[in-house]
């Protein structure tokens, strides 16, 4: 079996009484997209920053290409932070050129400008570009040194749907070049679309790990019918199907959709605002924790 490009062993990060990361372990094969999925405050960003070397670990081990990290780690990885800033009075072009000069081996600027769609803002100052443009610039900076391992911390936060989709396409094309991508997200769509393997984190711990289809198979079954709570006029205990209330919606799980619908119609339940969906990562998280990812 090939050596994982990154291996995390029993990683702990503690801030006085608070255990932000409580002993997580995983290994990431080269060339894959690996996701850390979890709600806000789950410990994803802290775990990522410890791995990146931004903050020190309380305990645990991080192996890069099978060995402890060395000074060359920052030459081989690219990082896009969730929250960061650039020098206000520099233009996008200045910024790219300055960061480019900090590395030995660098990517072609033309390629990055085109990949991240920065042509139109190259002359703009960093404090005059939009949030989406700043995210694309940050991604270009993360790719400047031709990294073999790319860390993206909530890369699509604050982006409009079109920019988000564009970002996903960029990440996919990066992965197709054989680079390894590690990303944190609280978006199940993003994780499902981009990630080959996911760990789901909650309260600093890993509560599930696997590929998105595997996780769904392992933790969910059947089909889910959602209805506004008020449509279900009978007591929950009298409903002959497994159901639960989530944020004012009644979620009823059925093994066979036809049988389920027939049962609900026989109970004279109004199905006019009904939605039906197959289980996804959101349902996995709900089943594991009793909460939604965005709660």
């Amino acid at each position, binding site marked *: 079996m090939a050596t994982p490009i990154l291996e995390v062993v029993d990683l702990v990060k503690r801030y006085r009484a608070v255990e932000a990361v409580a002993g997580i372990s995983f290994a990431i094969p080269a060339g894959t997209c690996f996701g850390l999925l979890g709600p806000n405050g789950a410990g994803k960003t802290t775990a990522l920053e410890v791995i*990146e*070397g*931004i*903050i020190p670990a309380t305990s645990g081990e991080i192996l890069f290409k099978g060995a402890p990290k060395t*000074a060359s780690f*920052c*030459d081989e*990885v690219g*990082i896009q*932070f969730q*929250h*960061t*800033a*650039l*020098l*206000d*009075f*520099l233009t996008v072009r*200045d910024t790219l050129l*300055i*960061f480019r*000069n*900090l*590395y*030995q081996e660098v990517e072609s600027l033309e390629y990055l400008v085109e990949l991240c769609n920065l042509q139109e803002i190259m002359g703009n*100052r960093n404090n005059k570009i939009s949030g989406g443009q700043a995210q694309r610039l940050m991604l270009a*900076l993360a790719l400047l*040194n031709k990294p073999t391992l790319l860390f993206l911390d909530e890369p699509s936060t604050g982006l409009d749907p079109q920019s988000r989709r564009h970002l996903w396409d960029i990440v996919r094309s990066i992965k197709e070049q054989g680079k390894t991508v590690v990303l944190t997200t609280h978006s199940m769509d993003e994780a499902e679309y981009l990630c080959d393997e996911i760990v789901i984190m909650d309260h600093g711990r890993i509560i599930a790990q696997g590929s998105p289809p595997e996780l769904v198979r392992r933790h969910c079954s059947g089909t889910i019918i959602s209805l506004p709570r008020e449509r279900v006029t009978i007591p929950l205990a009298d409903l002959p199907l497994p159901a639960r209330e989530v944020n004012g919606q009644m979620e009823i799980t059925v093994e066979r959709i036809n049988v389920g619908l027939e049962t609900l119609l026989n109970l004279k339940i109004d199905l006019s605002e009904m939605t039906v969906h197959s289980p996804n990562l959101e349902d996995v998280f709900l089943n594991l924790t009793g909460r939604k990812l965005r709660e």
Partner: protein
Amino acid sequence: MSWKRIWTMFKARNYEFFRDTAAFGWNFLFPFLIIAGFAIAFGGRDFSALKVGVFPSVAEKVDFSRSNLPEKFLKTEHLEFIGFSDLESGLAKLRHHQIDFLVRQDSPTPQYWQLASSPKGYLAERLFESSFVPDDHGFGIKETVAGVETRYIDWLFPGILGMNMMFSALWGVGYVIVRYRKNGALKRLKVTPLTAFEYLTAQALSRIFLLTFTLIVVFFGADLLFSFRMAGSHLDLLIVFVLGGLSLTSIGLLVASRGTSEDFTSGALNFISWPMMFLSEVWFSLEGAPQWVKSFAELLPLTHLLRAARKIMNDGATLTQVSSECLVLIGVTLFCLVVGAALFSWNE
């Protein structure tokens, strides 16, 4: 250590400074404003003059035509007479130390007022009393010192340059680094091959370059306007200011080596800069101050910078003659840079 990375960060900081038109403009305008203000307020006037209020009189120009004051007192040099219409208006100014002495000019018997706590009032009283006694040239030997005199503005000019350098060095480095740490700009740099020492060196060099650039423009600009006395070598003065700038910049780097609170940093920088402003002889000499104040002032790098600059500008001293001041400035720089680099954190 990579000079390419240092050069890159040096350029980045310089771009920022020159493109921030507000900060850039203020760095040049501030010393001009201070010097111009002092030149206008005190230009050509004797700072040691005692202000003597005289009543009754019309305001401003005093009419002595019907005065009973002795001629000798009225002709005393370095006295400035200010007219008041009545006693009350004169007393109001005396109580607020706006004049040093108040005298009635139409009284046959000498009548005057002074504040009990005012040293200048005491001196004016002694002069007033002596003016009633005939001159006695029978004591001592008087010798007049001739030559080029140093005006207050000549003495003040190095102080203004040094003060501007101090604020620019401390805030331009210390405050900026803390702001970058707080907003995450330093965190972004941390994950590149750039080392803390390279970053700090680039910041210090950039600040020195900017300080020197500002210093040269302000020096020659102010000299054109006010024609300052420059007895020594321009190059020696430049070297002294570069050493002073390095020492002040390194203090800024040390203060900014850790922390993300701009308020705390601002407080710390004020705590450092205000004693220097008042005790390093920017505005006035410490001659006559208590010994402990003078000893404390010796700990401040600005004291040594200004002493060396004044020796060169006012007295024509050479670099060798100010070597002890230069050594202190180099020592402060090395200490602060080494400790600052050891304590430096990109994100904490």
